[in-house]
């Protein structure tokens, strides 16, 4: 303990080291604060959406007199609430929709409509604790550890220090622990504050803290491997900077490019357009053909499927659903492609620890691609329930009034049912 105290004192006397740690602390604090603000904004938006729903439904109740109107005008909220760790790793939450108001119309267009604006939102990038851990903390670790031995050698103190008893145990070990521990502390303290504010479950907070520790251990090991080689401080710093550049920027970007080139994914916006065009074409198709295709999927509604010569909602919602089926395979290919890319990126993460740790943080925070796809699947499952709820009214000609609006299925963010 006294060795650690002594080395902590020495570190504390170095203005440069303190400045680096303070800067990292401020960045980590800012990352947590921005994460908390983003999560809070998400929650507020979700709350606003949910708070507005009763007013929306009472407005609808003023004129709804059949199920078709209810299905057509009745927007239902779905949302993907931020997890208790989302503040620390925003992941895809800044580019993927976290709430969506849907109707019983064709769904695919509704889901992918959101993507048209997302690239704009993604341009500035995100600044959260995960970014600080993956990109900035290694630089401070490199700054504190690259000259562990070479700095002493160049200053002429190395032999004097080595000449003391058990130098490895009493000097170098504690010095490494204090420097790496200092970096870890300035990352963990803001995280702990954020976790306390958010009410993160202790186990999940510990797991996330464990990933931060792993990230620090990785870069500590890399820095020490380079520092032990006996080169000058300048060479060590340059080598480590190059390694940081390669491992955190170049290699993950190259892997991302290779994965994207190797796994083609249909364009989400094109998918939405295709869905919409097929739905629009539904107006021009023979109504009998539409109904036959629909009833092949829902034979239980055949008894009530006869159409009047004029417009009827059951035909309208039938071709809406067929529009979804038209792009079902493309939609699945889209999801499979995204999932496949995520799988490959995860595999690449084993070779590129910084990228792997970044993914692990997003996965634990449920802000990764898998969480985004799972939310989409919950929307699809809920949309099926919503459609089928209205089909029962439409095909049985059961009366539908304002009171029935209260029985419309609700989205459950946990299960989607």
């Amino acid at each position, binding site marked *: 303990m006294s060795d650690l105290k*002594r080395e902590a004192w*020495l570190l504390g*006397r170095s203005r440069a080291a303190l400045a680096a740690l303070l800067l990292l602390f401020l960045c980590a604090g800012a990352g947590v604060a921005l994460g908390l603000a983003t999560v809070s904004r998400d929650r507020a938006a979700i709350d606003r959406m949910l708070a507005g729903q009763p007013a929306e439904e009472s407005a609808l109740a003023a004129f709804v007199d059949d199920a078709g109107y209810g299905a057509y005008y009745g927007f239902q909220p779905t949302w993907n609430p931020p997890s208790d760790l989302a503040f620390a790793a925003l992941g895809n939450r800044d580019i993927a929709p976290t709430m969506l108001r849907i109707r019983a119309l064709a769904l695919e267009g509704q889901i992918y409509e959101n993507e048209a604006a997302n690239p704009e939102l993604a341009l500035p990038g995100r600044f959260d604790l995960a970014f600080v851990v993956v990109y900035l903390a290694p630089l401070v670790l490199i700054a504190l550890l690259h000259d562990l031995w070479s700095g002493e050698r160049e200053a*002429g103190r190395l*032999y*004097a220090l080595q*000449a*003391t008893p058990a130098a490895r145990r009493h*000097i170098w070990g504690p010095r490494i622990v204090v420097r790496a521990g200092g970096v870890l502390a300035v990352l963990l303290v803001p995280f702990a504050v954020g976790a306390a504010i958010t009410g993160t479950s202790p186990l999940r907070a510990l797991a996330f803290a464990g990933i931060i520790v792993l990230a620090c251990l990785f870069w500590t090991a890399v820095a020490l491997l380079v520092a032990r080689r006996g080169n000058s401080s300048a060479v060590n710093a340059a080598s480590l900077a190059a390694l940081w550049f390669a491992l955190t920027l170049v290699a993950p970007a190259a892997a991302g490019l290779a994965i994207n080139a190797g796994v083609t994914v249909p364009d989400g916006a094109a998918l939405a357009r295709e869905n919409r065009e097929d739905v629009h074409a539904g107006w021009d198709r023979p109504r009998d053909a539409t109904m036959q295709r629909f009833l092949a999927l829902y034979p239980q509604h055949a008894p009530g499927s006869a159409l009047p010569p004029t417009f009827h909602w059951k035909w309208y919602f039938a071709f809406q659903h067929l529009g979804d089926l038209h792009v079902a395979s493309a939609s699945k290919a889209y999801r499979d492609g995204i999932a496949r890319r995520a799988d490959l990126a995860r595999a690449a993460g084993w070779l590129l620890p910084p990228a792997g740790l970044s993914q692990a943080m997003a996965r634990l925070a449920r802000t990764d691609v898998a969480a985004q796809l799972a939310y989409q699947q919950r929307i699809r499952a809920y949309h099926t329930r919503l459609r089928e709820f209205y089909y029962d009214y439409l095909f049985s000609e059961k009366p539908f009034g304002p009171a029935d609006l209260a029985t419309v299925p609700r989205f459950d963010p946990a299960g989607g049912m």
Partner: protein
Amino acid sequence: MPTPPLFIADLVVERGDKRIVDGLSLSLAPGEIYALLGGNGAGKSTTLFAILGFLERQGGSLTVGGVDVAANPDAVRRQVAYLPENVALYDHLTARENVDYFLKVAGCPRSRADVDAGFEGVGLAAAAWDERAARFSKGMRQKTAIALALLRETPLMLLDEPTSGLDPAAAGDFHRLLETLGRRGVAVLMVTHDLLGAADTADRIGLIQAGRIAREWTASPTVPRFDLNALHSGFASAR
């Protein structure tokens, strides 16, 4: 007979495939100051590094206070204070903080009063005690380091070119400090090129050549302590 602070017999040290120290023998009594003279590459610093356990020996025996260096280097280092050629302190720390830090590193913390006494003993001006080492001259650094060595109270001190770069006055101060160490019973092994300084202070002077002590002179109890002409010609022939 007391255990000698340093005992070396037929020491052999190789660096790579080159034999640097080749059969060197040397023994120091408590309080004895021994100057090891020799040209560049003669094996002076290598001998110091072997004593400190930085380099493995390939032959011979080497004990400090009766402890074999190879068997227990940490026990040896507890008994040795080492001053490298360029005494380097932490520039951002004061003299007092430097001494405090290095004493703690060596596992022998001392009180503030002891440190002050150490500084007084080596003649470091009181104004410098709480001054950052970045502003120190080489002489002040040297005094700080010797105060540190004194405070460690080790029976053996190893000095590598201690007067290199010191002005004549500072070198004079330094040699007086060595005499103080000797009087306190600290054995000193000093590696140096400074023939005059060695003649002024040392009890014995050894000339190292091709990795072994080629000639040795012992100080006379009367002045002049050494025959400078003999020393100089021996030293010149070794170079």
